C-alpha cells in the first residue's frame, strides 16, 4: 500500500485558524434587493408604480368630485384649479376618472399576471420535469390553444358571458398562461439535469421536493420577469378590448374606454385623450423597466 507513506500528507493547520469568510452574510432576498437598489432606472420604474398605485387608491377617495356625476354645464373643460385634468363630455372630473381607470387597469393587470403565474408554473413545470410523452401531449395541447386566434376567443367569450371585469380576466387567462408555461418548461428542462437536482434525487427526494425546492426557485428569475412583463401586456390588452367596446361598461371607466371616448374629439379636447393615454404609457413603461431591473437583480452571476 502506498497510502500510508503518504506523499500528499497534509500540513498541520494552526489551531482555531479555520477557514473564515469575512464577507457579511446576506440572504438571497437581501442580495436581490441590494442589487435592485443599485439600478436607477428600475428604481424609477418601481417608484412610478408605487405612485400610480397610491394615486389610484387615494385620489377617488380624497377628491371632492366623483367619477359618475354629470355636470353638463362644465363639460369638456380644459384643466383648471377645480378640475386638474379637465372634464369629459358629460362634465365628469377627468382626474378622478383617470384614477378610477387606474384601479381597473392595475387590477386586471395584476390578476391576469397572478393567474398566468400559477397555471403557467404548474403546467410548465410538469411538462419540463416529466418530459417524454407527458411533455409531448401537454405541449401539443398548449400549441392548439395558442393557435386559436386570441381575439376570437375573447369575443366569443364576451358573447357568452356579460362584458365585465371578470369576463376580461377570464378571457385573458385562457391563453395568457401559455407563454409562462413555455418559459417555465424551458427553464426546468435546463435545470433538471443540474447536479444539485441529481444530488437531491440521490438523497431520495420525491418529484414534488425536487420541483418546488430545487427547480422552480432557481427558475424564479425568468418567471418573475415574465410576470412583471405580463402585467403591462395585460393592462394593454384590457385597454385594447375596452377601446373596442368589449371592456368595462359605463359609468366605470378604464383607460381604454376613456381613450376610446375621447378619440372623436381629440383635436378639440386633447386633454381627454392625453391624461389616460399618458398614464397608460407611464404605467407600462414603469412595469417594463422594473421587470428588466428585476431580471438583472435575480441573476447572481451578474453580481459585482
Amino acid at each position, binding site marked *: 500500500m502506498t497510502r500510508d507513506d503518504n506523499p500528499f500528507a497534509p500540513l498541520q493547520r494552526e489551531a482555531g485558524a479555520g477557514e473564515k469568510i469575512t464577507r457579511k452574510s446576506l440572504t438571497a432576498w437581501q442580495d436581490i434587493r441590494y442589487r435592485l437598489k443599485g439600478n436607477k432606472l428600475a428604481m424609477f420604474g418601481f417608484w412610478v408604480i408605487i405612485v400610480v398605485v397610491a394615486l389610484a387608491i387615494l385620489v377617488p377617495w380624497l377628491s371632492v368630485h366623483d367619477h359618475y356625476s354629470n355636470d353638463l354645464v362644465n363639460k369638456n373643460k380644459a384643466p383648471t384649479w377645480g378640475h386638474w385634468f379637465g372634464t369629459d363630455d358629460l362634465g365628469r372630473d377627468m382626474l378622478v376618472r383617470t384614477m378610477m381607470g387606474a384601479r381597473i387597469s392595475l387590477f386586471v393587470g395584476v390578476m391576469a399576471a397572478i393567474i398566468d403565474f400559477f397555471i403557467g408554473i404548474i403546467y410548465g413545470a410538469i411538462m419540463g420535469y416529466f418530459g417524454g410523452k407527458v411533455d409531448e401531449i401537454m405541449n401539443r395541447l398548449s400549441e392548439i390553444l395558442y393557435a386559436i386566434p386570441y381575439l376570437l376567443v375573447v369575443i366569443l367569450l364576451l358573447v357568452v358571458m356579460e362584458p365585465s371585469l371578470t369576463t376580461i380576466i377570464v378571457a385573458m387567462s385562457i391563453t395568457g398562461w401559455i407563454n409562462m408555461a413555455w418559459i417555465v418548461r424551458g427553464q426546468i428542462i435546463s435545470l433538471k439535469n*443540474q447536479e444539485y437536482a441529481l444530488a*437531491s434525487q440521490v438523497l*431520495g427526494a420525491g418529484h414534488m*421536493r425536487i420541483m418546488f*425546492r*430545487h427547480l422552480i426557485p*432557481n427558475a424564479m428569475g425568468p418567471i418573475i420577469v415574465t410576470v412583471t412583463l405580463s402585467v403591462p401586456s395585460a393592462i394593454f390588452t384590457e385597454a385594447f378590448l375596452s377601446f373596442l367596446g368589449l371592456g368595462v361598461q359605463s359609468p366605470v371607466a378604464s383607460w381604454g374606454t376613456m381613450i376610446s371616448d375621447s378619440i372623436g374629439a381629440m383635436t378639440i379636447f386633447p386633454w381627454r385623450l392625453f391624461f389616460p393615454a399618458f398614464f397608460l404609457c407611464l404605467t407600462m413603461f414603469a412595469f417594463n423597466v422594473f421587470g428588466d431591473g428585476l431580471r438583472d437583480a435575480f441573476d447572481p452571476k451578474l453580481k459585482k
Partner: protein
Amino acid sequence: MSKSLLDINGLSKHFQLGGGRELKAVQNFTLDIKKGETVGLVGESGCGKTTAGRTIMRLYEPTAGSMIYDGVDIAKLSKRQFKAYRRRMQMIFQDPYASLNPRLTVLDIVGEALDIHGLAHGKAERKKRVEELLELVGLNAEHASRYPHEFSGGQRQRIGITRALAVNPEFVVCDEPISALDVSIQAQIINQLIDLQKQLGLTYLFVAHDLSMVKYVSDRVAVMYLGKIVELASSEELYDYPQHPYTKALLSAIPEPDPSAAREKERIVLSGDLPSPINPPSGCPFRTRCPAATEKCAAEVPELRETRPGHLAACHYA
C-alpha cells in the same frame, strides 16, 4: 479478502435515441466491490464511467444486469423500495459549482438529507447535526448559514461531501470529485476522502480520469473503454504490469515529474478518436486505435479473462 458489498453483474445501460438507434453507454459491466475498499474507475471522456456510476445509484434505470448490494438485487427494486438504500449509498458529484443549489444555505443543502430520511427531530437537532458534519469535513459550524456562492471550489466540494455523508452511508460513488478543482485543492480533498474512509469505514467507487490520483487512492482499478471494462487489477499490479494496450497507452500519458526520466519515457500516442458508442466497431472495441490489432480482433469480441493472478484483461493478446 473481506466480504463483497456490491456485486455488479452484467450491468448495461442503453439509451434510446429515436429512429431505432441505441447508445450503449455501459455494456456488461461486471465488478465486485468489497467492503472497505476503494475501486478506481478510469477511462477517457465519453467512455461511460459517469453513466456507470449514475446507473449504480439508480439515477438511470439499468437496461440489464444485477447489482447485489448486501444480498439484495437493487437493480430490481422499485423506486420506493430503493429509497431505503439511498441512506446506505451516496454520491459525490463532479462539479462543485453545479452540485449545490445556489438558492439554499448550507444548512438547508445538508439538512435536506436529514429531512428526507427523517434523521433529525426539530430544528435545533438538525442544525447541530449539520454543524457536526461540517466540522467533520474541515469546515466551520458558522458556515452553515452561508450560501454556496460565498465558498471556494474546494470548500464547495467539502459541502458536497458533507451532504453525501449526512445520511451515514457505507458506500459512496465519487464521480470525478476532484477533476474540477485546482491541483493543490485536489490533494486536500483526496486526503479528506481517505481520512473519512478510515474514520467511517466507507467503501468508495472512485470515478476519475486522472490516473496518478486513482493509483494513489485505489486498492483496485478498473479501466473502461467504450462502455466496457477492459482491464481490472489491484492498483500496484495494474500500474506495474498493464496487460491491455489501452491501459498501456493511458499509463504512458501520465506526466513524469523527473525531466531526465521524462526524456527516456516512451509515450504511446493513440491515433484517431474514441469511436461512437452508437456505432461501435465489431469485435474488440479498441481495435480501431490499437497498435497491435489483427484480423482476429475484428472478428471476435475479447472476453475479460485472467491473464495474471488476480488480473483481468479483455484482449486476445494479453
